[in-house]
């Protein structure tokens, strides 16, 4: 790369910042109930696309990752019971770490 790295980082920074700022504050006075309902569904798509590929894609291939699936189901189950993000996060990540270290066989 011949360009100065700082220039690259600054252009990257500007591109990243603009994407974050672009729609962050739209005038919502005229938002219809339909539009608001649509907006309230966006997190479902974002969460799903941040979660599902890490459960069903491995090394560029379609693959079921049983450990991650079980841990995710456990995470939801603990959420349903405890309504506590920290406990659910800790229990499900703990399971994955213990299995990865061989402490718990799977």
């Amino acid at each position: 790369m011949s360009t100065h790295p700082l220039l690259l980082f600054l252009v990257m920074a500007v591109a990243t910042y603009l994407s974050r700022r672009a729609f962050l504050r739209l005038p919502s006075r005229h938002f219809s109930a339909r539009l608001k309902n649509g907006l309230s569904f966006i997190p479902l798509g974002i969460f799903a696309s941040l979660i599902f590929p890490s459960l069903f894609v491995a090394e560029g291939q379609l693959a079921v990752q049983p450990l991650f699936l079980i841990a995710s189901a456990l995470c939801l189950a603990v959420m349903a019971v405890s309504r506590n993000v920290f406990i659910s996060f800790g229990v499900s990540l703990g399971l994955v770490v213990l299995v990865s270290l061989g402490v718990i066989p799977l």
Partner: protein
Amino acid sequence: MNTSEPAAWKQGVLDALPITASYVLFGAIFGMLSGQSGLAAWESMAMSLFVYSGAAQFAASSMIAEHAGFWAIILTTCLLNARHFLMGLSLSPYYQRFSPAQVNALAFLLTDEQYAITLNRFRRYPSDTSYILGVGLSLYIAWCLGTWLGTVAGQWIPDPAALGLGFSFTAMFVALAYYQLLSVVRILTFVLCGAAAVGMTFVLPNGLPVLVAGLLAFAIGYFLPAAEPTETAQSPNVKEVEST
């Protein structure tokens, strides 16, 4: 808000804590890998301080190692960032009460994880800048601190794959997604978008599946307006979902 609860910024720091720890680790991995790509320590630090985007930075450092061109790296950054458009749009109702200067400043701190944590908070409490700053600055400092650690002590960073720590982000997203899955329609939308995102990872550049899945969810919500009342109600009396 109940005065016996911790200050909003403090609650933000607490809610972000598990991800703050993950950011230090992954920042360190970035610092180590960018060093292997040929970047000087100060250059890795500059990238984390200015760009502050894990996806874009990992992609850029591997492209720098492969001697990719300037514009190729910028284009990749833009594609990876496309998901922020929708996150911003989905947060926009909560940012209405902030001044333009506050929005300009807070926009810099928007990441996937910050989005998930703050959105969860604003379901129950009115949006406020101090909470966003508590979450956002924790994560920003963690990312930059991690990068620095990676540049000075890269050889001692544990391999997150071997420890299963790569699952930490998924675990946080699953826990926070729970509150979105309040009806059959929403659960079906979630599964449909997830399946679509998996399919898209094979054909679309990294970053775009999030954008398309978000648009798909928006379309479903828009065209099924009678399915349920809007999710944006902020009732402070719902206590059972407090996250700490």
